[in-house]
């Protein structure tokens, strides 16, 4: 597919654009008035639209209108000289870049290069074609067997153990089990056993009375009680302490719970669905998990496959999330390029569906036109909301995820070590004043490191 470019530019810049477009095998249509620009946008879809801020009749209202049209594709603005106002406008309307006039062919190349291998546009599913939950998206054999098990066990009240890697969608499956069961009129309550510190988990599960311990500023209803007649989802149960495992086992056997600091027990009717990404068999052998609790939980076991083994599902899920986030963020995105889909399918997805979801959320925010292109995909760099983002080393000697303060601290430490803590020499190497270095050493706590700076 040849990229099609529309531009509102003066004659000289139009020629520069023509040449650059020809080099990538595309076609450029240069217009010289706003009327012609709008007509061209009405008549055809474009891969890229370039608008000069200095052209007659170009104002903020027009640019907002152009940015909102599906036919615009990627929007590039260009203007003479640097202006904060133009930069802010460009950011606000979601333009891909603000280039300087006269146009420089090399600056254009970067944006045109991204267009040439995008392939065709694939339409995203509309609201009517989308299932309510991501867990129901999938046509692979692996997921067919998961769907079969969900259908079999959802109507019963037996406990279910969901296993699988992080991010495979265990909570969404647990929620689906609840929604398909006769308990759906009552609450689905989720607890993450690994996220909640040991000292809080017991009161979170069973509730506490006001003043039961320091910090119990209010009476709290436990998750067991809240899930009465509904479903309790115990996620990452492999991380629960043995003491609490015993208490959960007793609650499951006796169907009664007692608040922390309370004196009476209350009856609860709860269906438990538990999940783990650990091998519980090994945990039992190592004495970290109670065997009796395992058998109590694993009446039915459903293993969720990692995304990399789900074939075509990756594409379906990507399109599902793209449509979902376009709607959520109010973006008029209706398609994704085949090049973008190919990149998605070739990726390994260590963070599974959770990672794919984040990538598509970001891609929607980074897309200014109506079609998500491969350049909008931040694969491998899509930040989880976790503090536990791996700090993988980069060729530059520090991870791309490192903050400036981290890099600075590390570099100052290394320089100080190389000069055996002599501040004057270190300041010379770093090219900063001795006093500035002393302040940084104190701020970053480096004076306690490596024998101390002098």
């Amino acid at each position: 597919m040849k990229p099609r470019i529309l531009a509102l530019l003066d004659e000289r810049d139009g020629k520069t654009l023509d040449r650059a477009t020809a080099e990538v095998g595309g076609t450029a249509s240069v217009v010289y008035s706003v009327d012609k620009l709008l007509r061209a946008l009405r008549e055809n879809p474009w891969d890229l639209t370039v608008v000069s801020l200095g052209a007659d009749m170009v104002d903020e209202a027009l640019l907002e209108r152009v940015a909102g049209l599906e036919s615009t594709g990627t929007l590039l603005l260009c203007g003479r000289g640097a202006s904060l106002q133009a930069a802010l406008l460009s950011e606000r309307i979601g333009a891909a870049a603000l280039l300087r006039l006269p146009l420089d062919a090399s600056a254009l190349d970067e944006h045109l290069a991204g267009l040439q291998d995008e392939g065709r546009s694939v339409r995203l599913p509309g609201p009517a074609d989308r299932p309510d939950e991501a867990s129901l998206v999938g046509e692979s054999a692996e997921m067919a067997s998961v769907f079969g098990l969900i259908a079999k066990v959802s109507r019963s009240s037996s406990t279910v153990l969901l296993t699988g890697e992080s991010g495979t969608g265990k909570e969404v499956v647990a929620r689906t089990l609840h929604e398909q069961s006769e308990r759906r009129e009552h609450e689905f309550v989720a607890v993450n056993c690994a996220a909640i510190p040991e000292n809080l988990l017991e009161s979170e599960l069973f509730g506490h009375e006001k003043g039961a311990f320091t910090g119990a500023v209010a009476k709290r209803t436990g998750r067991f009680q809240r899930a009465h007649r509904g479903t309790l989802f115990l996620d990452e149960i492999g991380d629960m302490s043995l003491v609490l495992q015993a208490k959960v086992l007793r609650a499951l056997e006796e169907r009664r719970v007692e608040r922390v600091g309370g004196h009476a027990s209350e009856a609860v009717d709860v269906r438990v669905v538990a999940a783990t990404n650990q091998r519980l068999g090994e945990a039992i052998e190592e004495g970290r998990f109670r065997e009796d609790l395992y058998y109590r939980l694993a009446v039915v076991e459903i293993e969720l496959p990692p995304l990399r083994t789900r074939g075509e599902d990756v594409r379906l899920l990507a399109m599902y999330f793209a449509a979902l986030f376009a709607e959520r963020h109010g973006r008029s995105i209706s398609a994704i390029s085949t090049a973008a889909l190919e990149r998605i399918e070739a990726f390994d997805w260590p963070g599974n569906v959770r990672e794919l979801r984040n990538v598509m959320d970001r891609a929607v925010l980074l897309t200014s036109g109506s079609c998500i292109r491969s350049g909008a995909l931040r694969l491998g760099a899509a930040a989880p909301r976790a503090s536990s983002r791996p700090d993988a080393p980069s060729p530059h000697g520090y991870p791309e995820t490192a903050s400036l303060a981290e890099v600075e601290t590390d570099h100052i430490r290394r320089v100080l070590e190389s000069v055996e803590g002599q501040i004057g020499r270190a300041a010379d190497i770093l090219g900063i004043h001795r006093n500035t270095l002393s302040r940084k050493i104190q701020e970053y706590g480096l004076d306690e490191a490596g024998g101390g700076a002098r």
Partner: protein
Amino acid sequence: MKRLTIDGLRAFLPELDELRPLVDHLLASSRVDETRTWSESGELGTAGSRLVDAAELLQRSQALAEREHEHARTMFGLIAEAIAHVEAGRHDEAASALLRAAALEEARDRPDRAEAYAHGAFELVRGRRAEESLASVALRRRARARRTLGRYREASRDYEEAHTIAEAASDPRGAAEALIGAGNVYEEQGLWSDAEARYRSALSVLDALEGPVPEHWHALLNLHVVLRSAGSLEASVEPLERASEIAAALDDSGAAAFLQNARGQLRMAHEDFPAAEEHLRRALGASGSPRAAITIRLNLAECLLAQGKSLDAAEEARRAEKESLMARLPQKLPEVYRILGRIAAHEGSTNAFVLFERALEIVADRGLPSLERAQTLQAYAEAERRVGDEETAAGLHEEADRLYSELGIERMRRAWSDRFDAGRDGPKRDIKGTRDD
């Protein structure tokens, strides 16, 4: 084998004051648990779930001990110096030595100790006509420590007295500094008209000087903040512009981060979030200290969250978390966990409470001011309401309300309480770009 986390460490390590530098070091050198990267427990991770680097501590423990020894030697030296000066009748020099000790403790984030030394310094020169300026300095330092400790009534009393003494000693800059300090205390309490009056008085004092001094832009910037907080957005622009002009005339490069941060917050008040983001990113680039960078980064996270970019907001908050740990500023963590908690609640997580509980735990462990606790309870109540737990939300709301009343923070309390009762979202977190006195 389960690896040792900061929580695991705290379960057996006694909570002794002398171990605090060691614990801070362990926090700074701790690592994230990479196995949790894509799990919900990773999203809700806090300092407590980070992994301890025991081998690194074994290497550094001697240097850590030496640093503490060095600090003790300096402090003992200053005390000995002060005693010798008192014996020789040189009370001014003795007070100066104690003020140096106060400054050292303040730099180590020990406002309780800084207050004690500043108090001693003030007692040495109190009522001595020749040392009135020094007495005013001592009172201002004591006031600043008391403000950090959340003892607002005592802090404002100290600043007012410091102003009277500086004025009597014909020390206009000292008088202006005291007025700015008093304004900051009132501003923090939400007593905006009192704060505005003090900043304007400071400007009257400073305008009588021959040329501009840094206190000029401090007072103007703070006046802008208080007008903006009170909702007078139009009126707040002029002092901000004047602050920028004076900082430029003084070639004060340290002002850029504060001024850009203020511009960012002004744009946020106008709900022009993309423009706000631009200013905040510039402020971040200009920030010279980790403390300022963390505050600006959290403002940026707010700004991103307001635009629906929750992934980016969480990423900035996580960077602020890392910077707080590395720069030994764990007192900034409650702010970090408040915003992460709000993001998690915004995403519908019923486990968002973990982050608020962590924030409350740090407030208690570090003896942080009640305002921090009140703000955390407020955000916590809003999050619980958002995820549908009305019972818990009401209890938390009641406790936050009680604390605001106790602190005399009436306006903020009332505004929030009305909104909470009406079932709407709470006000945005109030982060000031105010330059301290």
